[in-house]
């Protein structure tokens, strides 16, 4: 049953030890930072986390890893210049890593959400990451059999939710959110705006059927969105529009 809650703490309160948690975001875009912080506060441990990365600097997922609350991480790119907490846990053998090419990561969650038992992906064929996996040649091309990744929970950030739980996202912050929402048994969403009116049915990106818990938490995304709407209302271009192409800018230099 769809629920709207008031705090991030309430939103993550069902997450228990040992749960598999899909966490959205690519870089800061679409990262449900306040939900991750609440998960940290909740004390849940022994988690399996699915995220594109393995935490950065001293915040969010990195802190969960620092505190050894993540038993296993499934991700595409754990090693970053500021992934020191993961690096340390990994080198100490205190976190299990399943490294998955980014597109397979997305498609494996999509398969879970779509009821697909497995699929043949060309990505990773002939590489270390396909070792031990079933391979098959189909119409002269080589594929690796990949399995679904399901979550007990998904923590995602969308831009807005309507009263029916329908979601829209903002720019490249959309990234993993819509896929993770379909792949988890219980999807928890933080949004900048909780709307009073239904979204335009043509514009809904994640239908409410995939959404269980919604919490409104204003972030920088809302600030940028309002600036964009103001600009448009004033007949000006959106602030994020390029004024010139890279080639034009390079030519000027």
């Amino acid at each position, binding site marked *: 049953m769809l629920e709207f809650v008031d705090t991030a703490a309430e939103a993550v309160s069902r997450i228990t030890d040992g749960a598999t948690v899909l966490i959205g975001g690519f870089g*800061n875009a679409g990262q449900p930072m306040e939900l991750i912080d609440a998960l940290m506060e909740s004390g849940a441990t022994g988690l399996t986390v699915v995220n594109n990365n393995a935490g950065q600097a001293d915040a969010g997922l990195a802190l969960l890893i620092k505190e050894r609350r993540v038993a296993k991480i499934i991700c595409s790119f754990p090693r970053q210049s500021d992934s020191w907490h993961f690096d340390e846990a990994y080198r100490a053998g205190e976190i299990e890593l399943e490294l998955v090419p*980014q597109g397979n990561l997305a498609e494996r969650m999509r398969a879970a959400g779509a009821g697909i038992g497995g699929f043949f992906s060309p990505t990773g064929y002939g590489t*270390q990451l396909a070792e031990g996996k079933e391979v098959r040649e189909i119409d002269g091309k080589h594929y690796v059999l990949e399995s679904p990744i399901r979550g007990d929970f998904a923590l995602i950030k969308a831009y807005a939710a309507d009263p029916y739980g329908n979601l829209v996202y903002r720019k490249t912050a959309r990234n993993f959110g819509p896929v993770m929402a379909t792949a988890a048994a219980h999807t928890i969403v933080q949004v900048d705006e909780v709307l009073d009116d239904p979204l335009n049915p043509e514009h809904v990106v994640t239908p409410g059927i995939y959404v269980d818990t919604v919490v409104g938490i204003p972030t920088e995304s809302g600030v940028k969105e309002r600036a964009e709407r103001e600009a448009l209302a004033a007949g000006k271009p959106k602030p*994020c529009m390029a004024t010139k192409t890279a*080639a034009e800018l390079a030519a000027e230099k």
Partner: protein
Amino acid sequence: MSEMTEQTTETAGAQAFRSTDAPLTQDELARVIADDIAPGSFVNLGIGQPTTVSNYLSPEKKVTLHTENGMLGFGPEATGDQVDEDLINAGKIPVTELPGASYFHHADSFAMMRGGHLDVCVLGAYQVSATGDLANWSTGKPGAIPAVGGAMDLAIGAKDTYVMMDLFTKKGDRKLLAECTFPLTGVGCVSRIYSDKAVLLLDPSGVVTVRELHGITFEELQEKHPDVRFEKAGA
């Protein structure tokens, strides 16, 4: 879109062999690649050096850039008020939006790539084999923390995967090999190497067609790569 692109690519590929005395600068190399990209193409430029190719894609060419984190039609790096945390490229750098852009989720974005809808992907490389195997995600160093990101998806996704790299490492080691010694990113996926010293067309046969040489002679190239068979383009 395929017909036009492939035809133009063919034409570009069929260029007769040419050579100059000096190696190409990085900017010159970026321009060579940009010139080979057909008008109207959809292109993914890998993180780092490949990004500079966009500096030479004239607006008239109407090339659309794809970033695997869910966008077609992004513009140059954002500055000042343009900067928006929700609008970044695969290198996590804030970028801008161009007219005609579209946003989509990660599964759709990689489906676009894996499904062969992008015309060209330009990537960096540690090593490339004569048959087009690519190694660009790991040097296989023991104890290193592995990280692959979208490299394996990018390698096999586009209609053409170009590698942009120096032909030799700073230490002078070869990067074009009969077989890669570093862990592979993809098998037989690279169709061209654009390097400071040579533009090379690869083929499953392993015979490497040399389209351009810059600051290296055909004989020197052959001598440095005794286990690779080269042929001059148009010869």
